[in-house]
């Protein structure tokens, strides 16, 4: 009962935040609504007992991805009104995507009645059940190749991003850090010993 109240509370905030993302006029506010949405979905996962996934969602998406996103959005100087003027041009495409998503959602709800189990039918786990250990065991045994493949794909993405942004322009001035770090006092300062001058 209590869990249900919590679920509806967080689910309402989640849907509200998701609506906020697309209706907010200021792009920074949109990003912050998205952060709120991520946070609430993490809480919903916690309610299901998936604490590892919930915390990783906060750590990766809220703590890293959205920070960089916010960083970029703050630096952009977008004229929101101008961006929204061509909005109706894409309406047919949007409608198609909307219909596809609605059909998919309906299918999920329909399939659930066909024998897919819902959350309250899941077997309750023991108090010492360790979500993290179970996930780790699965990832490093049954799904080892898929896991390593995902890691390699991410590595390729990193290399691609760096090679796309790294440009060597002619005439670029750069500091030689190792020579800066290895500099000693004798190279920069000269102590001069001299006798004090006679009083005039």
């Amino acid at each position, binding site marked *: 009962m209590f869990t249900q109240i919590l679920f509806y509370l967080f689910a309402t905030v989640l849907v509200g935040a998701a609506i906020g993302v697309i209706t907010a006029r200021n792009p*920074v506010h949109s990003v*912050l609504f998205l*952060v709120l949405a991520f946070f609430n979905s993490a809480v919903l996962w916690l309610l299901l007992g998936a*604490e*590892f996934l919930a*915390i*990783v969602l*906060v*750590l990766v998406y*809220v*703590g*890293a991805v959205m*920070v*960089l996103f*916010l*960083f970029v959005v*703050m630096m952009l100087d977008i004229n929101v009104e101008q961006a929204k003027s061509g909005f109706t041009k894409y309406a047919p495409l949007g409608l198609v995507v909307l219909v596809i998503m609605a059909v998919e959602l309906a299918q999920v709800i329909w399939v659930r009645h066909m024998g897919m189990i819902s959350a309250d039918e899941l077997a309750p786990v023991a108090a010492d059940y*360790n*979500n*993290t250990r179970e996930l780790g065991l699965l990832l490093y045994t049954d799904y080892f190749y898929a896991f390593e493949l995902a890691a390699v794909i991410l590595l390729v993405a990193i290399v691609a991003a760096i090679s796309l942004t790294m440009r060597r322009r002619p005439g670029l001035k750069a*500091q030689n*850090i190792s020579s800066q770090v290895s500099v000693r006092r004798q190279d920069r300062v000269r102590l001069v010993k001299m006798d004090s001058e006679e009083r005039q």
Partner: protein
Amino acid sequence: MSFSDSLPPQLHVVAITLAQILAVTVVLILCVAYLTLAERKVIGYIQNRIGPNRVGPKGLLQPFADVLKLLLKEVVVPANADRFLFIIAPVLSITPALAAWAVMPLFPGFILANINAGLLYVLALTSLGVYGVILAGWASNSKYAFLGAMRSAAQIVAYEIAMGFALVAVVMASGSLNLGEIVQAQAGGAGLLNWFWLPLFPLFIVYFISGLAETNRAPFDVAEGESEIVAGFHVEYSGVSFAVFFLAEYANMILISALTAVFFLGGWLSPFQGWFAADSLLGAPGFFWFALKTAFFLFCFLWFRATFPRYRYDQIMRLGWKVFIPVTIVWIFVLGAMIAFKLPPWFA
């Protein structure tokens, strides 16, 4: 019939938990207050001054005088500032610093929330503190504040990676994400030689220095950088909202010190475990040891501030990306070898 018996049993748990949370938070905030005094005193003596000594006996009431002064000042919201975000930014920076204490093992058998993924929880929460800084910089509608926020965001994202890798090694060595079990894994007959600071020595150093950078403390305090960008992200803040930023910075310092003590110096374990009897004063584990270790790291924070000049910004980035991250990755492999060969006394 006592008051606690009159409550229904479900509320019992809630009441006890709330009382514990309150106790931890109040003590923490008092620690923050006296840390500000300790900083002024310690840096004073390092610089051959006396430091504050006017308010109360030996200046001991100085923090309360400061708090009172800040509470009575006007909160100024700049023109064209984003009012809501401007007000909420300091709150966003203090909340994670306090919430992370939920999983801290304070003394044997006591953790507010003994969750399995405690270390991940700490990582997730400490990564949220940056929002307060970024939003403060953006919402202030001031170029100095914005520059400070940009610097801080880039710095925190860079050092979080090194910090995360150092913690991966801690997890490998202890075999658990639970902070209480990480402390237990460092127990042994050799006392302080059993703690993880020895097999993980480079990572211990990397973690603490990354902690300095994460909290925007000297010598990595370019986010404030008063000689270049006035006061960085909190230049437009005054009164209570400034006090909350101050509180958050010091609460984060205490958090990083306590975490370093838990991960690398055995938390509440006694350094003389196995040398003296387990029930003697020096041999028994307890809150005392945890507080002592935390205080040592806090002193280091103050010591570094009084000693080192501020890093240049490009050198901060170089240190984070090109020195710390490779060091941590190499040491994870070294540690893997140590565990594979069951190196005594840590991994036997």
